[in-house]
C-alpha cells in the first residue's frame, strides 16, 4: 500500500501532519490527520489568579 506523508502541514497556526494511504489503483484508501503537539495549558493554569489567566492563555495561539 502506497503511503504519502504531508509533514508538516504549512501556512496555518499550529502543528499537524497528514498520512494518506493509497490502494493498488492509486486511490485514497484512508487518511489520518494528526496533531503532534501538546503543551498542557489545561493543567498548568489550574489554581492561577483569574486576572493572570488571560495573560497566559493568550499564548495558546499568537496568530
Amino acid at each position, binding site marked *: 500500500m502506497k503511503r504519502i506523508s*504531508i509533514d*508538516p502541514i504549512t501556512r496555518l*497556526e499550529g502543528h499537524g501532519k497528514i498520512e494518506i*494511504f493509497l490502494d493498488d489503483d492509486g486511490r485514497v484508501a484512508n487518511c489520518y490527520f494528526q496533531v503532534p*503537539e501538546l503543551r498542557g495549558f*489545561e*493543567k498548568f493554569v489550574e489554581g492561577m489568579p483569574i486576572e493572570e489567566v488571560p495573560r497566559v492563555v493568550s499564548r495558546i495561539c*499568537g*496568530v
Partner: protein
Amino acid sequence: MAKLKLASYWAAACGGCDVAILDVHEKILDIAAAADIVFWPIATDFKYSDVEAMPDADIDVTLFHGAIRNSENEHLARLLRAKSKILVAFGSCAHIGGIPGLANLFSREDILKRVYLETPSTVNPEKITPDPRTAVPEGEITIPVFHDAVRPLNQVVEVDYYVPGCPPTPAQIWNVVQAIVSGQLPEKGSVVGASEKTQCDECTRKKQEKKISGFKRIATVQPDPDTCFLEQGFLCMGPVTRGGCDTRCQLSGVGCRGCYGPPPGVLDQGAKALSAITSVIESKEEADVQRIVDQIPDVLRSFNRFAIPASLITRKVL
C-alpha cells in the same frame, strides 16, 4: 552579494513570534530583498524532508522559536542546528522556556490525565491518551514522544544568539535583522534585540522609595496609572527583567511578568525576584513579613512565569 538563506521554525510555540516578524510590516519587503526564505512553516510550504535534504550549514540564519517539549521539537532543533551557520533562540520559549515551561511544575502523567481524561469538555469514553505509535489497518502511524519536561533551546543544542521577548517587539526584530544583514552581530552567545538595562530603568512610571506594606491584586483594586506598580503593592517583575520592550505591559496598565528574561548578570530570574521584591517589604518583624509575603498571589508562577526551564532547578522534582 549573494542573498542570505533564512529559516524560521516553531517548536512548542504559539505562532506569536512568527506574527511579530510579520509585524515589521512593509519592512518585510526589505527582508525579502536581502534574504531568501528557505523554511518557514507558517508562511511557506517547505517540508521537513526539504530541510533534511539540505547540505550542512546551508542556511545562514535560523530563527528558532518555541520550547523543546517533545521528540519532534528536539529532532528539528538538532536538524536546524546542523543545517544552520547561525542558530538564534528567538522569543521567550526558545530563550528561557516561556509559557510552555509552566508545565515543568507538573508531571507528564498529570498533564496527560488532565487534558485527555478530566477536563469538563472532554468526551473520551474509551479513555484514549496519545500513543507515539498507533497500529492502523493500513500500517502504523506515529506522533512525537511527549517529554517529561520542557527545555529551552540551549539545553538541547548550541545556540549562537538569543532574542528575548514574548514576543520580541517588531522594532527589536528589525534591529536584529539589520545586524544580521550587515554582518554586525556581536560576540557569539550574546542577547540581541534587547537592552542591557532592567525594565525599571526604562519604565516611565513615577518612582520614589520602594516600601511594600502589603500586596494587592488588579482584580480587586484599581492601580494608579502613573505610579510604580511595586510601590503601590502590585506585583511587577520590572526589577529583575531585561529591558528593551518599551515597557509595553506597564504602559498597558499591568505589571511586568518577566518575558524578556533576566537582566545581565542574573542567572535565575525567579530567585532574584524573590530576593529583590521581598527585600523591600516594610517590616522587620518575622510574623509581619510572613503575613505580607503570604499576600503575594501565586508566588511560584508569578516569579517564574517565563523562566522555569532556565532556572537553576528547571522543574518541580516529582
